[in-house]
């Protein structure tokens, strides 16, 4: 295996050097776990009968994933054809009469599964980013000041366990009332999802940052005092680097929550994304629906896993304590 491939596999738990024993550990053991799961799934699925037919097993799900990909490609083809026809028509019109008014309409086809994945990813990253932008500075300020920490801790503890579904109606109403513009930069549904996600994934980053900041060793604080570092230099040179491991622990938790919250929010609010896809398929109720939902479930899981690995890679990159094992 080339070194590049090894580098890519490393975050998945692959060792640096491959020998037979480590190959078995790295590949065969997880593979057999997956196989056992598929087997149990297959047996279980055959024995569950729903009003939409048999519960989908691995084979049906594989079939549906191909279908979803084909549908996506067909839709893209349709879109390309549509623009082609429109261009041809307009060209003809202009040839006849150079002053003719031409109309350009955008294609309004239905969003495919792949489109929904894209929407969800953009929304989750935007929400997570917005939350981090608030949570990290707020965490630093709260962590540095015991009084502020005591003041805000009850509020944080109160809102931390609130489900996204409870926030959603409020956020929807507020966005409808406040976010009014003739030519909005973002769709209202996007803003609603983003705020809901942010509200729910704010807390782990906030708390972990605050704890990380407040547990800086007193010796390092004394160094800072002896050097008479200004508040800002103290924060940049001492506080943030010390708290980086804790901040990243928080960020990873937050991103995981953000992804889970987003799917639920999309489902309930009918905002575009994977959640809406699942809900639409459920409402659709064809014999293929369950299979298609199962594809979505697996894709949601894979994306969540991937997001966490990306965060882990970032964390390893910025972590100064190389002796610490990150997993």
């Amino acid at each position, binding site marked *: 295996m080339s070194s590049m491939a090894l580098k890519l596999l490393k975050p998945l738990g692959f060792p640096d050097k491959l020998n037979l024993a480590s190959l078995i550990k790295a590949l065969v053991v997880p593979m057999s776990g997956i196989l056992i799961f598929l087997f149990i799934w297959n047996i279980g699925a055959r024995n569950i009968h729903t009003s939409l037919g048999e519960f989908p097993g691995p084979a049906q799900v594989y079939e549906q994933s191909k279908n979803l990909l084909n549908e996506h490609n067909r839709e893209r083809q349709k879109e390309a054809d549509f623009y082609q026809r429109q261009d041809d028509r307009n060209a003809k019109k202009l040839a006849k009469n150079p002053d003719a008014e031409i109309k350009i309409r955008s294609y309004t086809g239905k969003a495919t599964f792949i489109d929904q994945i894209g929407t969800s990813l953009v929304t989750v990253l935007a929400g997570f980013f917005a939350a981090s932008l608030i949570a990290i500075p707020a965490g630093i300020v709260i962590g540095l000041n015991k009084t502020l920490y005591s003041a805000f801790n009850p509020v944080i503890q109160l809102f931390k366990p609130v489900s996204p579904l409870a926030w959603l109606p409020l956020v929807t109403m507020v966005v409808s009332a406040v976010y009014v513009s003739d030519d909005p930069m973002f769709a209202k549904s996007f803003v609603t999802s983003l705020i809901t996600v942010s509200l729910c994934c704010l807390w782990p980053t906030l708390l972990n940052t605050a704890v990380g900041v407040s547990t800086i060793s007193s010796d390092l604080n004394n160094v800072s005092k002896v050097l008479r570092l200004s508040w800002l230099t103290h924060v940049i040179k001492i506080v943030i*680097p010390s708290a980086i491991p804790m901040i990243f622990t928080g960020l990873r938790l937050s991103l995981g929550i953000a992804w889970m919250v987003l799917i639920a929010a999309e489902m309930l609010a009918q905002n575009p994304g994977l959640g809406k896809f699942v809900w639409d398929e459920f409402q659709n109720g064809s014999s293929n629906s369950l299979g298609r939902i199962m594809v979505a479930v697996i894709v949601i899981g894979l994306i969540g896993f991937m997001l966490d690995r990306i965060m882990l890679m970032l964390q390893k990159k910025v972590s100064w304590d190389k002796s610490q094992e990150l997993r």
Partner: protein
Amino acid sequence: MSTKTHLELTGVDIDFPTPSGPFKALSNVNLKIKRGEFVSLIGHSGCGKSTVLNIVAGLYQATKGGVLLDGKEVNEPGPERAVVFQNHSLLPWLSAYENVELAVKQVFKNSKTKAEMKEWIEHNLHLVHMDHAMHKRPDEISGGMKQRVGIARALAMEPTVMLMDEPFGALDALTRAHLQDSLMEIQADLNNTVIMITHDVDEAVLLSDRIVMMTNGPAATVGEILDVKLERPRHRLELADDPEYNHYRAAVLSFLYEKQRKPDEAAGQPEKNEKKAKSNNPAQKVLNTKQQDAEQRGEEAA
């Protein structure tokens, strides 16, 4: 060495608040230190040596009395009173060079150019023999090397007084001896004023111009002050058989083990006796656990 008072502690008291009322850690500490003098503070654990040092550093505020440095009152920490901490306190995410750089940039930001700063950082790392590893991070170098960098960082601030809180306490005996020799060299070169806390009687006699012996807490104070009039430069091997050196050592030991014998030591804790049995030489008597560990490591190394 001028005879004028450089640093003066006058009637220093400190009370720490505890749930059961204030705890008087220090009571009426008086000390006058001349410029360029090397002073050791010695005493049993918990007698408030570190507290004295922290008051001079400005990290603690005296409840009564105060500290004057060149006629000015000390009431906050500052780089002119650089501290070498016991556990080095380097920033683990910065290399040795960057650790010193942080201090140099802060202290000389208005008075040195970039090139001058670089030269000054390298000069100080050279003084402590760390030029070969200056771009390594603290977790990549040994405990002794970390402490060298800690000293370089303190020296780089060009302090009027250098405060050292058991700088070699966590090191093994061989490394400690190396660092003591380095410190004596540097001290001969720069003639800094140094206040050093130690538990090690040999270290105190070898390095100091004066040894300040503290009584046991609570309400600890200066017990006796011993002038060490040994010729400099001092060499540990030559001094080992020197009657004058042994006389000084005996004086400190008698203060610690006769006049300020700890009540719990008199009762004889089993694990402490065990340690004492290991080394019959009273000079090697260990005074606290940190040093016991270091001593053991030293024995292993030897």
